[in-house]
């Protein structure tokens, strides 16, 4: 047996009852989950935050798609009509920033940074630095294809523009994006 705070055990007991489980079954399920996420290298608390974030992303109209398929699709689309597909990615980025603002989030860039750190596992290196009204963004991802890097760069531009920044510097190479912007 393990000891737990009385108030927490009470609340959890009520939840279990409402869901038709015993507290024993529910706690054991939860501990199984804690073990599972520990194997992924994260704590249960981090897992709950990631889950919450993933549900928000779902509600915001995102799809979970296999990376290689996205890169292939992006390549075909970009080769065919680059201007149109670039505009779609830019608009999607601007929409993401606007969604954050509409939800009362004062700093959409910070929210996006959090989102990328938790769920952007195809981007091993993402840095966002601030200095007064200026921001500097750097993305390094050896997995990005050339066309996907160009499209993702436009997406990032959309986010910054939507968040109220003007782009002052931009450098793009396969898997490598550097962008600087100034708050309007």
């Amino acid at each position, binding site marked *: 047996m393990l000891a737990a705070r009385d108030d927490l055990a009470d609340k959890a007991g009520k939840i279990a009852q409402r869901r038709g489980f015993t507290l024993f079954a529910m706690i054991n399920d939860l501990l199984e989950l804690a073990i599972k996420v520990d194997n992924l290298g994260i704590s249960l608390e981090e897992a709950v935050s990631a889950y919450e974030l*993933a549900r928000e992303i779902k509600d915001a109209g995102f*799809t979970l798609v*296999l990376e290689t398929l996205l890169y292939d699709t992006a390549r075909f689309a970009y080769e*065919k009509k680059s201007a149109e597909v670039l505009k779609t990615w830019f608009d999607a980025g601007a929409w993401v920033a606007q969604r954050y603002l509409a939800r009362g989030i004062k700093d959409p860039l910070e929210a996006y940074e959090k989102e990328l750190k938790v769920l952007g596992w195809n981007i091993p290196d993402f840095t966002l630095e601030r200095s007064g009204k200026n921001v500097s963004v750097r993305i390094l991802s050896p997995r990005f294809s050339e066309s996907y890097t160009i499209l993702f760069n436009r997406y990032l531009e959309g986010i910054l523009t939507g968040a109220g920044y003007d782009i002052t510097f931009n450098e793009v190479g396969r898997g490598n994006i550097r962008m600087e912007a100034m708050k309007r």
Partner: protein
Amino acid sequence: MVTDRGKRLIYVSEDLLERIAKVARDEGISLNKLVEGALMETVKVNELGYSSKQMADFFNVLQTHRVLGGLFVPSVVLDYMIEKLCDGDALYQLQALWYESGKWNGKYLKEKFSDPIDAFRHFLELSRWDLNEVEVKSGANSVKVRCISTVMSLEGTQLLAKFIEGVMNGMNFKTVQADCLKGMIILEFKT
């Protein structure tokens, strides 16, 4: 359960104890702290309107996507690229790529999960949020897959159908029926 001065003793199955003790050690906290943390997260997840079962299923899918290289993309961008920009030869080539990717995924699911069909159903339900209905029925020697979406384009539906076919073929099932209309996929497979 035994109550004592604001604390309550809760039963935990013995086989779990060893494993959660390891988790507590990894995180550098006491067992009691870990259990309390778990209870707090239960309350939080419940307040958000979800269950720990949904979370566990979701993390299975998320882990599969991590291994296979999945990522989140705005649906509007994916749909636009597929629907408006990929036609003719490009669409055929994409269908072949989605099929091959599906086959690879099918082999992975078969190796990784004791019930790969059920794992695939979860995979579809939890990662393809543009699907309104997902039905995967296993018979004695057959599997029927039915997906319905009110928002998917014909091209998007065709690509997903090829992916599903690839997954099932990757699990060594043979295609015996393949019907694909805008937003509707009906596939049947036999061993």
